[in-house]
């Protein structure tokens, strides 16, 4: 075990998987000589050579389409989108080709797309988005959103070994801020198993990614008011751990879903609907959603603070639910 940042854990996981499985290669913009915009692949090209750490032209379509072809030929590509926002340029390749190929043509497409996502540092409308729900709606894609260094490593290894296209959302605001003890050896973290980040009795708070830490701070504050919050970190949205969510809701009778993505059509709606459908009799209050408002992500810190759910927003929301 060693203390690793979230970013170091991603890098460790990727490096170990490349050492473990020679079919794995990395392709993206500036991933080679420069080591990636966030330095996740720093030193990789020296270790693995220019044909396993490939600097691509500014061509998201060719990167994801190229990964699809290489995967069908038996390799395990890991594509890096410099920012998750740029995945829009590869939408067609992911959604039209990769997601549907197994179902309609019987050809698995084992690719991993790394997506540095999220806001909190004035990245503005094009460097801060959380587009996970857009892809959660597409049958055939898996969605991973780690919150801790340990999960960042284990879920990345699982993503690379998964026989499907996996979108791996790594939250930029966690990169250097979150540290933890991470096992040195290679390991996998299974998809579809939520993590109980914090146990509690009064309210179930379901979230993922950076919002786990916002929820954590809010829960500590609420504890002082006598409100006990159970935080479930979903880890993966497709598949998502319905069982763990419903079990927790049956225990607490109240649920709030929190995400950094915008409100309408966000994945929180799916979770809220499922709780309403399957645990209605166990609820003592309507399921609450806390999410960003339905606007693009703003640039100015004053506006961005108003956009991204803050600890005080979560405290206020949970308190409201507790008082219901």
């Amino acid at each position, binding site marked *: 075990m060693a203390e690793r940042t979230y970013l170091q854990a991603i890098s460790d996981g990727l490096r170990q998987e490349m050492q473990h499985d020679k079919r794995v290669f990395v392709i993206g913009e500036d991933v080679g000589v420069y080591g990636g915009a966030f330095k996740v692949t720093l030193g990789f090209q020296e270790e693995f050579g220019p044909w396993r750490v490939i600097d691509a032209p500014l061509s998201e379509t060719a990167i*994801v389409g190229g990964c699809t072809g290489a995967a069908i030929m038996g390799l395990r590509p890991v594509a890096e989108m410099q920012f998750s926002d740029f995945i829009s340029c590869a939408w067609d390749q992911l959604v039209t080709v990769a997601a549907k190929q197994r179902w309609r043509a019987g050809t698995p497409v084992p690719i991993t797309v790394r997506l540095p996502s999220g806001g909190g540092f004035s990245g503005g409308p094009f460097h801060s988005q959380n587009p996970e729900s857009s892809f959660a709606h597409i049958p055939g894609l898996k969605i991973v959103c780690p919150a801790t260094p340990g999960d960042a490593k284990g879920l990345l290894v699982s993503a690379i070994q998964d026989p499907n296209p996996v979108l791996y959302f790594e939250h930029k605001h966690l990169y250097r801020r979150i540290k933890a003890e991470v096992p040195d050896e290679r390991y996998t973290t299974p998809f579809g198993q939520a993590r109980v980040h914090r146990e509690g009795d009064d309210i179930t708070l379901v979230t993922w990614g950076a919002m786990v830490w916002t929820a954590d701070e809010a829960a500590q504050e609420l504890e002082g008011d006598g409100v006990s919050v159970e935080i479930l970190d979903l880890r993966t949205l497709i598949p998502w751990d319905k069982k763990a969510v419903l079990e927790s809701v049956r225990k607490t009778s109240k649920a709030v879903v929190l995400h950094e993505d915008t409100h309408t059509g966000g994945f929180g709606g799916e979770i809220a609907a499922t709780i309403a459908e399957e645990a209605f009799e166990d609820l003592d209050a309507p399921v609450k959603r806390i999410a960003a408002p339905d606007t693009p992500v703003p640039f100015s810190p004053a506006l961005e603070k108003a956009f991204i759910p803050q600890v005080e927003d979560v405290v206020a929301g949970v308190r409201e639910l507790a008082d219901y």
Partner: protein
Amino acid sequence: MAIAREAEPVGSLQEVKEAGLDREDLLAVYRNMLITRGIEERGHILYKQGKIPGSFYTGRGNEAAAVGVATAMDDVDVGTPLHRDMGVHVTRGVEPWRIFAQYMGRADGPTKGKDGNVHMADSRLGLLAMVSHLPAMLPVAVGCALAFRIREEKRVAVGWFGEGASARGDTHEGMNLAGVRKLPVVFICDNNQWAYSTPTYLEYATEHVADRAEAYGFDGVVVDGTDVLAVYREARRAIEKARAGGGPTLIECLTLRMEGHAVHDDAFYVPKDMFERWAASDPIERFRSWLREHAELGDQEEDEITSAVKKLLNDALTRAEESPLPDPSTLTDGVFATPEDLDTPHHK
């Protein structure tokens, strides 16, 4: 002004032998062209009988381009043929009854009823199934070539697109990446002159689509797509060049789409004399005449081939009609792959 090289027609049997085809190969090419057209003609009848749901697309006029390129590929090579390229599936060995089953949405079609038309492929034969968003499979073909380059395998990927799809960004990104990395890929443009109802001069402003190759750092060749031997020779050269590490080639096969975009379209917008001109250069008739003149194809042998193809297709049709419709319970099968699905030669 044209930049791409304009390929000469193939003349003698000797020239063909030098290009690697013996007489038996030539007859196989002829047979595959007949099967290709026969499948689509029977498909048309099936459609009119109401046995094919949705729409129906053919590649009439493109048989030489498709069969010529596929004949030039080795078994280890892979390709992403499109909806005018039935001849590629036929040449690679897809059984015609499976194609009829696919047309009719039956359980024994390659996609088991999940997709229709020529949206199919047998991956064991090195083919990848197309999508409607043309030319989305072009970057995928480039990715196959990237895998061959990474593993240092002597294999080549062939990516097809039409002159209409040449206007989309995937074409640029795919060709640019392939050019930059000198990947073993051959791009085949089926230029049938009509993107649905849009003529070439509203699709691109150069004389040829293949003129673009120079901008990507590789060779462009324009070939008469109704001349199966010229197509074969140019495809073979390009594939072997790619296999030897010489990088990509863009081959533009000039043809005419001899029918509408799909079965509902009577192609009223195509000038009549254009159809007449190209009908005089029908790829199958053209090759038949060549075989008679240069390869001693006589009446008896020709009849034997024609009857064998007819029987093959009639039997195929009967077998396909016996194939059941897919069980609705299979709808949700295979949305996600399982680790066992990776148990294929590609993934070893």
